[in-house]
């Protein structure tokens, strides 16, 4: 028996002490298996979300209404692919390969953010995704910049910088449309109507119903509760909507002087579960697009490997 098996409790205590002291856990450090598994699940889901998230925005890339907007959107989607790459790499430090993660995505075992199961139906949706979806992502991600796992925390820091840029670009699209023609204002309002509630759901279930939250908080994988993050997002976003002259689709939304926060209506978790379980308009399309890209690209990846092997063999032969 080696040291690890001899003293699991001591190791776990030392691990927790390190986490409590706000020190980063690095790939070579000992860590509880459940910590590793939780991180793999969360980080791969995060990576998958970046990659699947390219699709709803990519849906408007060929139809962007100006060359400048097309360039900005293209750069943004490229950033998202890059975020996916960092995150897959960071997850790989936990002993899982990118191929394994893809397999889990394609088999349905791993999830991606369910927000991407909604369709992008007008150009305003590109604005709404940047403003709301990226806005919500940032709130989540800022908290994760202090995550106990070093590679994840560092990836988050890098990602946060770019995301805040994306969020401003999204808001700018909304602004332009909210100040535009009647049809543009309608599109902007319609986009807000459709994206508002799904965005709030991105923060996950209420704390009282969030099963794993306690342990994740203790391990500092999670630094703030779902409800706190959601409130933070709402408080930041309501004034932005007011500035745009758009109406948030929630009759219960009201500033609560006492709490110093906005009160808001109840989230329809039935709808959330329904979309997670396959009833989003795009669940099938999104997954199929990824599977098709992966399967359809197999011959290319095989060719690249085969060519590299041939080159290597020639080098050896020549030596």
């Amino acid at each position, binding site marked *: 028996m080696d040291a690890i098996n001899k003293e699991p409790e001591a190791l776990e205590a030392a691990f927790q002490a390190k986490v409590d002291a706000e020190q980063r856990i690095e790939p070579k450090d000992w860590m509880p298996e459940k910590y590793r598994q939780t991180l793999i699940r969360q980080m791969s889901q995060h990576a998958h979300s970046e*990659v699947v998230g*390219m*699709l709803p925005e*990519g849906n408007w*890339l*060929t*139809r*962007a*209404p*100006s*060359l*400048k*907007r*097309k*360039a900005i959107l*293209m*750069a943004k*989607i*490229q950033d998202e*692919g*890059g975020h*996916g*790459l960092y995150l*897959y790499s960071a997850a790989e430090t936990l002993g899982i390969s990118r191929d394994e993660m893809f397999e889990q995505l394609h088999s349905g075992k791993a999830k991606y953010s369910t927000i991407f199961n909604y369709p992008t139906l007008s*150009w305003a949706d590109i604005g709404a995704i940047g403003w709301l979806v990226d806005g919500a992502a940032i709130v989540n991600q800022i908290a994760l910049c202090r995550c106990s796992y070093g590679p994840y925390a560092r990836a988050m820091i890098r990602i946060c910088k770019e995301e805040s840029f994306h969020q401003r670009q999204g808001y700018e*699209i909304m602004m*332009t*449309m909210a100040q*535009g*023609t009647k*049809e*543009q204002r309608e599109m902007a309002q319609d986009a807000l109507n459709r994206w508002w509630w799904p965005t709030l759901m991105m923060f996950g279930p209420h704390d009282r119903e969030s099963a794993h939250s306690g342990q994740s908080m203790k391990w500092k994988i999670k630094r703030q509760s779902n409800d706190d993050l959601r409130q933070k997002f709402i408080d930041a976003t309501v004034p932005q909507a007011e500035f745009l002259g758009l109406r948030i689709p929630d009759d219960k939304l009201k500033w609560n002087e006492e709490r110093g926060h906005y009160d808001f209506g109840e989230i329809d978790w039935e709808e959330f579960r329904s979309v997670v379980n396959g009833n989003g308009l795009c669940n099938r399309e999104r997954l199929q*697009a990824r599977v*098709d*890209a992966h399967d*359809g*690209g*197999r*011959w*290319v*990846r*095989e*060719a*690249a490997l*085969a*060519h*590299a092997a*041939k080159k290597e063999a020639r080098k050896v032969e020549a030596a």
Partner: protein
Amino acid sequence: MTDQKMHFDYLLRLGDNSLILGQRLAEWCGHAPMLEEDLALTNIGLDLLGQARMLLAYAGEVEGKGRDEDRLAFHRDTMAWRNLLLLEQPNGDFAHTMARQLFFDAFQYQQFAGLCSSSDERLAGIAAKSLKEITYHRRHSTDWVIRLGDGTEESHERMQRAVDSLWGYVPEMFDMDAVDDAMVAAGIGVDVAALRGEWDRYIDEVFAEATLSRPEDSWSVRGSREGKHSEHLGYLLAEMQFLPRAYPDAKW
């Protein structure tokens, strides 16, 4: 055609080439064979889009009728486009996309190298800036054509098929017409007909390393300089131009 009109037309050809190929690459977004290629293809697409914006904006100024880059991009119908036929061809599989890219990258590299010493300083500046990007594009497509050509049996077959099926679009790149002649005479443009030899040498080297056969020159098509395109362009434009066409009064 007046000198000004020819100058405009010349810039339009350059800008349209970059824009249409960039648009085609945008279609790959999220569907590439690996994540790294999603990044590479959007990167190249972005470069091309950037070139297009500079060239079309400049073309609009030369024309002097108040058309900016967006007016030129979103409010011209098929017959007014001047991009090479090669570039509007559908993406096909990854081998097709790479063959199209290699043929154009190798051509554009030489063309823009020449344009760097254009007497039109603004054009020379755009060319110089773009040439760095194009050097990378050519490296990228060259690498892939070699990898796929000298990869597996399947990839070799696909790559050869792609090269064969696009070969007839090559000669048009090196055509010269009155506009080209006038621009060469004015020191603004490049004599593309003179570039064919070097292009052939480059491509032959790539083919050799990729174990690909150079196709026979059995057919060729042309017409884009007079706005005679393939049937593919109309669909591309319908999609690309939808919003500005549907909401002519809107700003975005």
